[in-house]
């Protein structure tokens, strides 16, 4: 598993739209991601955050516009963690190493890298347990390092702590932090303002499928330029 | 993992492969009545001991036996349907037809004899009585030798029982044993070959009612499947079987085959048929 000859960044999203059942769900979204910073896509329910993430990651084809990476095979250097962790019916270690197995990494190397990943997530003691007996928080940490073990340049996370209690949320956020410090760019969606404040370097504020505002995190939280952004921070914008 | 799979596959196929090697065998297509009587269990071990040739018996209805012969799926036939046999040979599917043995058909029915035919030896009269009284009759209805013999008797009696099919005349479309099972369960009449009847174990209240009519004569012949038509037919061992069957050893073996003290088949090789 080697790093790309050149980075897959910058990502250029141009006039991205998505239509389904006659409804426009993503409407001409454009932005660029130059460096592997921590980007938080913020917005109320139904804003289209999950959809935007999946469009960027390539899980869904857009109806219009384009998602342009700087490399011919960008998918190999991205990974995604979903709101509800999907675990294979195998052990914890087997789950973590699954992506490596798919890429043909040998058993010895896999074992070493799985151990490293488990340590990062604090799951070393649970290595031989069936993955499905873990608590949701532990499962989400597993999903995180299962993605990280592939050394993606960008990690997409779709409301990763939406179903977790505060303690588990803290544990997950610390793993995200460790992953970022190791060099991976983070693109995370959330409705949780506090989480956004904790984690974001920059904010993409989404409302009803449109990118309303884009700003460095400090500036956004000090005073959002848009009406919707301001309303959202105050807690007035429900959807 | 792959090596384990390969070994398992070999182990699984081995028994099948082993069977195909080994002693010479021929395939004999015969009828269920002959098989059910137990004759082959008595005869074939003797032939095998004498010749080293194994005989695989496929027992089906006569119609199916002829079909198997036509298609070349057997080497030799042992059947009891003179009309069908003649057609088979005439069409060039079989050669060297030889008489082997005979027995007879018998009319069986409820011990209580509701139609009053017990003890008779006139099959045609018995059938007339059955028709007159609408007594239940179970026909094989499968175009077998037995069925054709039965139809000949109805014709001789001037009756067409198919018009009453489903009322008192029932066509089971099955083998002898299945038909007897049905007749026994329903307390009806049937025409059976003596071999099957004597070895049949589910008689319930059925008894032998009519026998001895020469129209009930049931001859068995052996026919070689025509090797000119089917080149793969194992001529030599098949002929060896036919020679043994019609020779002194085979005929003696047929003669001393009994069930509950009664002989089921009477050897008659040498009485040639056209």
């Amino acid at each position, binding site marked *: 598993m080697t790093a790309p000859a050149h980075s897959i960044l910058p990502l250029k999203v141009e006039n991205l739209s998505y239509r389904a059942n006659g409804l426009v769900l993503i409407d001409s979204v454009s932005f660029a991601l130059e460096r592997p910073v921590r980007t938080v896509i913020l917005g109320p329910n139904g804003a289209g955050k999950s959809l935007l993430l999946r469009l960027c990651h390539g899980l869904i084809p857009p109806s219009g516009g384009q998602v342009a990476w700087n490399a011919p095979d960008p998918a190999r250097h991205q990974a*995604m963690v979903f709101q509800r962790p999907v675990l294979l019916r195998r052990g914890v270690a087997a789950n973590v190493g699954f992506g490596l197995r798919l*890429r043909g990494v040998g058993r010895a190397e896999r074992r070493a890298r799985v151990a490293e990943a488990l340590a990062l997530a604090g799951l070393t003691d649970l290595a031989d347990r*069936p993955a*499905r007996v873990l608590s949701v928080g532990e499962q989400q940490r597993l999903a995180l390092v299962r993605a990280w073990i*592939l050394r993606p340049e960008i990690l997409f996370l779709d409301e990763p702590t939406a179903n977790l209690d505060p303690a588990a949320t803290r544990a997950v956020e610390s793993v995200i932090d460790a992953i970022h410090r190791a060099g991976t760019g983070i693109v995370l969606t959330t409705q949780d303002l506090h989480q956004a404040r904790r984690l974001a370097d920059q904010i993409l504020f989404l409302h009803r499928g449109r990118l309303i505002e884009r700003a460095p995190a400090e500036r956004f939280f000090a005073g959002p330029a848009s009406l919707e952004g301001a309303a959202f921070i105050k807690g007035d914008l429900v959807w | 993992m792959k090596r384990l799979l390969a070994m398992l596959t070999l182990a699984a196929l081995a028994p*099948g492969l082993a069977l195909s090697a080994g002693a010479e065998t021929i395939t004999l297509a015969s009828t269920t009545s002959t098989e059910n009587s137990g004759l082959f269990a008595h005869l074939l071990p003797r032939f095998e001991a004498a010749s080293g040739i194994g005989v*695989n018996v496929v027992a089906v209805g006569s119609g199916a036996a002829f079909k198997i012969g036509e*298609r070349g799926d057997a080497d030799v036939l042992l059947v009891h349907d003179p009309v069908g046999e003649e057609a088979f040979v005439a069409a060039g599917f079989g050669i060297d037809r030889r008489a082997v043995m005979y027995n007879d058909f018998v009319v069986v029915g409820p011990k209580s004899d509701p139609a009053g035919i017990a003890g008779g030896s006139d099959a045609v009269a018995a059938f007339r009585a059955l028709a007159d009284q609408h007594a239940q009759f179970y026909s094989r209805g499968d175009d077998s030798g037995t069925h054709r013999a039965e139809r000949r008797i109805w014709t001789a009696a001037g009756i067409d029982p198919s018009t009453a099919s489903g009322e008192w005349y029932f066509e089971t479309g099955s083998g002898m044993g299945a038909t007897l099972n049905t007749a026994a369960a329903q307390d009806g009449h049937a025409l059976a070959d003596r071999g099957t009847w004597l070895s049949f174990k589910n008689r319930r209240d059925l008894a032998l009612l009519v026998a001895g009519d020469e129209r009930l004569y049931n001859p068995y012949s052996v026919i070689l499947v025509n090797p000119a038509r089917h080149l*793969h037919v194992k001529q030599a061992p098949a002929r060896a079987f036919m020679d043994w069957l019609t020779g002194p050893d085979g005929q003696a073996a047929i003669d001393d085959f009994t069930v509950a003290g009664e002989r089921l088949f009477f050897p008659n090789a040498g009485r040639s048929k056209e």
Partner: protein
Amino acid sequence: MSDIGAGFALALGLIWSLDADFVEIVLRSLYVSTIAVALAAVIGLPLGAAVALFRFPGRHFVAVLLNALMGLPPVVVGLSVYLVLSRAGPLGVLGLLFSVPAMILAQSILVTPIVAALTRQTVEDLWVEYAELMRSLGARPAQMVATLLWDARFSLFTAVLAGFGRASAEVGAVMLVGGNIDHLTRVMTTTIVLETSRGDLPLALGLGLVLIVLSLAVNGAVYLMREVTREPVA
């Protein structure tokens, strides 16, 4: 009713005495059905998974067809295979008619749709859960099939057992392509037919009871195997 009692007694007697002919027939029945089911699994498992996972024109038709073929009458399969393997048929030169391999072939044709259709449903249900993750990780089609088959293994085992039940219980196919030849192609179900036509109903029943006991034994063994290897659920 007395026939049933006699049947029970005979069944016990056969099992206890381990009569040589009886043992031979039982082993042959198990051999034919097991190999047939193994073949059906080798074909049916990946086939079912592929139909579940991949979009191709006519996909829904294939799924419906597989479901429908689960109801293939054994005697029709037997007749078709007979016509193909007969000397007068296209594959006659192989001389395979009236043999154990012919019986295995007929039974695998019978069982493959069962395994494939049940696999398709099981994998389809699991795919709902796994699809995004597998695509996100960049799994190739063959890898998706392998992962889903392994993760669904417990449900798929039941599908295979359903196939085994069908194979070991049928008589129409093996009778036609095997010929019920003594010491060669005779199996339990064809023996039951034979003894019934001989009027030996207690023996036929007894053999039938043995067949049921065998089926219980096979399923029991598989169940125990699963329990021993099963992972605990959260």
